[in-house]
């Protein structure tokens, strides 16, 4: 189980640094360091088992339906990478404490760094490839945050964006590739997939999988032609460059290729893609590095070149090359991270990292100069350092490869890249440190405190130690890791030592060193040669593509989404019509054969009334009161249709909703303009009419096609199980509160949200310009009596009766038409009648519960009912019922579904009350002045009872 914690500790530990940021930078650093080291310690607990040759597995299922599991595994490769990530991470954490200035938010920096660290460890330890993709994306995101850490600098923002676009885009391709891989391999667990290499290579999908996976790996590891993002990522603070962009994240792509090596490598296709890409990257990176003046840019392009080297080695597909690659990953991490940190020290102390303004620093900062000099020598591949050893192995491996039938192409390319490598390494070291001291550095340079150079020194000690005693120090690690890369095949013969005799690699190496020094001498001439050539500027091209994409998106958005509702809706409606028309013309559409029901006179009359009402609405929609009345008529006819076609619940619901919404619209209309300006544009009416008629015809045809076809339904189950399973005979209600109660639960929440939105919209309308407009609306009395006596008396007398009806409808709902929705609407109507008859102030004063409480209570009761089933170990919202004998009353049925229905009831009452009471409140503001406060025409007795009950006395 330790293994699960290894990525989780940094991921969750990322919360700690911001919390400790106020305790000082040292405390924050120590906390962050403790997080990383505890993760490393847990990881190393598994090391003995891995080095005995076991594979450590840990984790659990997550979403088995889609093949996602939370499983980790550590073999030689995973352990190697994870150790490297955590160990270098620890050094970087110390270094960053001294690198960042007081103005930088160190808590935020460490949080991002730990987030990245956890994600990166997650990539290399994931057993499940979908899990690995999640971590993969997480590294892209955290890298974005880290590159853009200095968000005030434009270069930082642009670099971060470019890195995110390139690596994020590659991540999407990789996702597709991995899903295909899992599909073909029959498992999403790497530990299984690694044994399925033959199946996958034989699959017709293999080329596609390979292309997608390589796209992900190449973008992440900055391979040509995607290499351009890495140098721009150097806008990040130097600790980030040293960590993400040399030692760890950019190696994720190399890791992926190594991880999937047994599955994907060894085919001609693999060879003919991966080797050329690696070789070209190696040459292009080294060549550009030679001409850069910024220390970090030199290192960035050098990193590109070395990543190309690793990719090429993996591409060769021979076990020997795989060993060389593993060894070089280790060596590159040590010397390149050291060099980045050294470049950061120079920048920090001298105030510039432009090589043209540097030189002569050896006397001023001797410690840094020695460390950087050794690391540069290793980068150049000089003996007796570790860079020399792996470069020799690389040259040795390159001899065996033949590209495009040309046996010399790979070795010559490799030697050339090594040559340029020597040249830029020499230039880096000599240009920065050699020569006489200058007097025009921006700052006065001197060696930094031990906190900054110690991490560099530790890495340089490794550089030398591995160089001198490779078999002793790196031997077991390389053997175990390389074995994990090449899978079941036996390890090839190789020897980690400085002297191999007079091999071809030695001569290539000597040629590279001599040529490199000569190239350094002729740097000026080469630079002139280079500037004479046209060369593509990646950043400008990238920005141009992005700008064009944004412009295209904006153009489309502005055309499709104009600030005019009719036009937007017309676009949507016409688009739907076009799709419908296409389907209509491309598929058969004969009339169905289901027997039709006979028409009778009542139905025909109702139909005629509907046509007439709808027709008048279309013609007279400027007369808004009439429109509203006719709309209610249409609603009533719809309810009649529900009764006719055996849907009593729907009819009850429709008719109560009709009452509520008509009142609501009336109230709103009171404040809105009552008439509309005449529409002069006939052309527009014709256009809209055509769209409307086409839409109507389409829907009618569709409805008719459905109605005249037989069908099979899943409702038979509901009908059969309603009584025995749900304990109710009203099948519709049982579906609502039992079979599909989760839907209903969601729906009452939506209702509640709508009510709250209405409240928010109207509550704030009592301030600002809206309130001023309301005040200006005050009109004279339209009727002598604002609260007519008969209405007041009638509604109050009705209240308890309507409540009784509501309770009755609620209780019978499980077995007969009714239920929470309808009962809620009925009770709400009773309340609203009080607001209408007696005014907002009077009613509001007497309301015991406001709408918020009712909505909240309803949702909570329904939710708790659902949670209750967990107590009995059943899924959410499982219902239960039983029959109980109660003295006098007799046997009654109690079902948990009724508690749920109570929640529905309360939510509906609350929603309606909240909506209408708020509108009434607005009305009261705009009402005739003076606004009647309290019972305008009725004097109440003191301590008035709850609304209803006692008859009011006239005042």
């Amino acid at each position, binding site marked *: 189980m330790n293994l699960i914690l290894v990525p989780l500790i940094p991921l969750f530990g990322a919360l700690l640094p911001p919390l400790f940021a106020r305790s000082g930078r040292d405390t924050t650093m120590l906390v962050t360091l403790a997080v990383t080291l505890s993760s490393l310690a847990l990881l190393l607990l598994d090391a003995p088992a891995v080095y005995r040759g076991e594979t450590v597995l840990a984790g659990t299922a997550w979403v088995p339906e889609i093949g996602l599991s939370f499983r980790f595994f550590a073999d030689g490769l995973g352990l190697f990478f994870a150790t490297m990530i955590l160990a270098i991470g620890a050094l970087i954490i110390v270094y960053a404490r001294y690198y960042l200035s007081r103005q930088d938010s160190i808590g935020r920096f460490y949080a991002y760094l730990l987030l990245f660290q956890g994600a990166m460890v997650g990539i290399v330890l994931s057993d499940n490839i979908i899990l690995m993709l999640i971590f993969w994306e997480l590294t892209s995101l955290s890298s974005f945050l880290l590159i853009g850490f200095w968000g005030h600098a434009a270069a930082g923002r642009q670099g971060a964006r470019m890195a995110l676009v390139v690596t994020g885009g590659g991540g999407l391709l990789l996702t597709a590739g991995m899903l295909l891989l899992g599909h073909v391999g029959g498992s999403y667990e790497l530990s299984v997939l690694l044994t399925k290499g033959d199946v996958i290579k034989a699959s017709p999908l293999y080329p596609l999988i390979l292309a997608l996976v390589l796209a992900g790996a190449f973008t992440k590891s900055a391979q040509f032609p995607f290499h351009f993002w890495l140098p721009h990522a150097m806008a990040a603070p130097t600790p980030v460059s040293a960590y993400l962009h040399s030692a760890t994240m950019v190696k994720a792509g190399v890791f992926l290729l190594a991880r999937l090596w047994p599955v994907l490598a060894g085919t001609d296709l693999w060879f003919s893609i991966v080797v050329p890409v690696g070789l070209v990257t190696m040459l292009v990176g080294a060549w550009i590095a030679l001409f850069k003046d910024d220390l970090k840019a030199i290192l960035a392009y050098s990193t590109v070149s070395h990543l190309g080297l690793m990719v090429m080695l993996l591409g060769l597909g021979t076990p020997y090359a795989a060993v060389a690659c593993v060894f070089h990953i280790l060596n590159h991490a040590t010397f390149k991270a050291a060099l980045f940190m050294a470049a950061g020290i120079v920048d920090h102390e001298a105030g510039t990292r432009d090589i043209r303004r540097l030189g002569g620093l050896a006397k001023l900062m001797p410690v840094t100069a020695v460390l950087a000099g050794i690391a540069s020598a290793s980068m150049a591949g000089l003996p007796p350092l570790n860079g020399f050893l792996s470069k020799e192995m690389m040259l040795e491996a390159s001899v065996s490869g033949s590209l495009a039938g040309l046996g010399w192409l790979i070795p010559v390319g490799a030697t050339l890249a090594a040559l340029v490598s020597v040249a830029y390494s020499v230039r880096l070291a000599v240009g920065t440190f050699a020569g006489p001291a200058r007097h025009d550095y921006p700052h006065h340079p001197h060696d930094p405190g031990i906190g900054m150079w110690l991490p560099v020194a530790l890495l340089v000690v490794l550089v030398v130690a591995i160089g001198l005693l490779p078999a002793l120090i790196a031997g077991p690690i390389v053997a175990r890791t390389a074995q994990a890369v090449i899978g079941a095949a036996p390890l090839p013969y190789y020897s980690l030592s400085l002297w191999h005799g007079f091999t071809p690699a030695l001569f290539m190496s000597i040629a590279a060193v001599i040529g490199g020094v000569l190239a350094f001498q002729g740097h000026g001439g080469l630079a002139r040669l280079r500037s004479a050539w046209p060369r593509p500027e990646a950043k400008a091209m990238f920005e141009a593509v992005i700008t064009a994409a944004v412009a295209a998106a904006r153009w489309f958005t502005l055309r499709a989404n104009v*600030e005019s509702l009719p036009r937007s809706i017309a676009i949507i409606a016409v688009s739907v019509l076009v799709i419908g028309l296409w389907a209509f013309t491309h598929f058969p559409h004969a009339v169905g054969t289901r027997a039709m029901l006979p028409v009778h006179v009542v139905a025909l009359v109702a139909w005629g009334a509907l046509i007439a009402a709808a027709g008048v609405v279309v013609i007279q929609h400027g007369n808004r009161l009439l429109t509203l009345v006719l709309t209610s008529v249409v609603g009533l006819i*719809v309810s009649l249709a529900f009764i006719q076609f055996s849907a009593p619940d729907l009819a009850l619901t429709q008719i109560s*909703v009709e009452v509520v*919404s008509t009142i609501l619209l009336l109230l709103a209309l009171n404040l*809105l303009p009552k008439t509309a300006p005449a*529409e002069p544009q006939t052309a527009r009416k014709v256009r809209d009419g055509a769209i*409307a008629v086409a839409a109507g015809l389409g829907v009618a045809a569709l409805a008719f096609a459905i109605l*005249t076809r037989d069908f099979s339904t899943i409702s038979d189950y509901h009908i059969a199980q309603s009584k025995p399973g749900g304990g109710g005979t009203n099948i519709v209600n049982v579906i609502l509160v039992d079979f599909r109660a989760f839907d209903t639960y969601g729906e009452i929440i939506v209702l509640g949200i709508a009510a709250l939105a209405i409240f928010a*919209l109207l509550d704030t309308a009592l301030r600002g310009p809206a309130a001023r407009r309301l005040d200006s609306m005050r009109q004279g009395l339209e009727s002598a009596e604002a609260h007519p006596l008969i209405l007041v008396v009638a509604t109050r007398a009705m209240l308890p009766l309507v409540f009784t009806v509501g309770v009755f409808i609620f209780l019978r709902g499980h077995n007969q038409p009714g239920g929470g929705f309808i009962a809620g609407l009925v009770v709400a109507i009773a309340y609203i009648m009080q607001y209408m008859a007696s005014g907002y102030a009077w009613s509001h004063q007497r309301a015991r519960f406001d709408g918020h409480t009712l909505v909240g209570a309803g949702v909570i009761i329904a939710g708790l009912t659902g949670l209750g089933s967990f107590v009995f170990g059943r899924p959410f919202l499982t219902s239960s019922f039983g029959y109980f004998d109660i003295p006098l009353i007799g046997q009654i049925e109690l079902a948990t579904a009724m508690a749920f229905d109570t929640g529905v009831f309360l939510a509906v009452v609350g929603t309606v009350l909240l909506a209408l009471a708020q509108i009434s409140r607005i009305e009261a503001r705009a009402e005739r002045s003076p606004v009647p406060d309290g019972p305008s025409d009725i004097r109440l007795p003191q301590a008035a009872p709850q609304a209803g009950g006692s008859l009011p006395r006239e005042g």
Partner: protein
Amino acid sequence: MEVLVASAIGLLTAVGVYLVLRRQTFPVVIGTVFLSYGVNLFLFATGRLAVNQPPIYAAGAAGYADPLPQALVLTAIVISFGMTALVVVLALRSFLETGSDSVEDSPAAADETAAAQVTTDQARP
């Protein structure tokens, strides 16, 4: 009967679409109400039409209307109410705020706003 129902659904939809394309808020709200009628009836119709067969479980019943579309439409009716209420309140607030119940800006004004937006974005570094 199927012809009547199908044509009614079509009519309700057509009226709804026509009203939603109007230029003031109130017809748009009424249009959504009509569209709700049409859509609810349409959903209901997917259970086909049945007379005198309410989905109330009873021994010896000849048959039942399909209860599932009914359950879906029941919640849809209530949700439609919630939506109508929200839209009408939105219309009310927008009228109180701006003094106009129009739902469209003149196309020229829209283009101007867009052009201004583009200029500001480009000015940013």
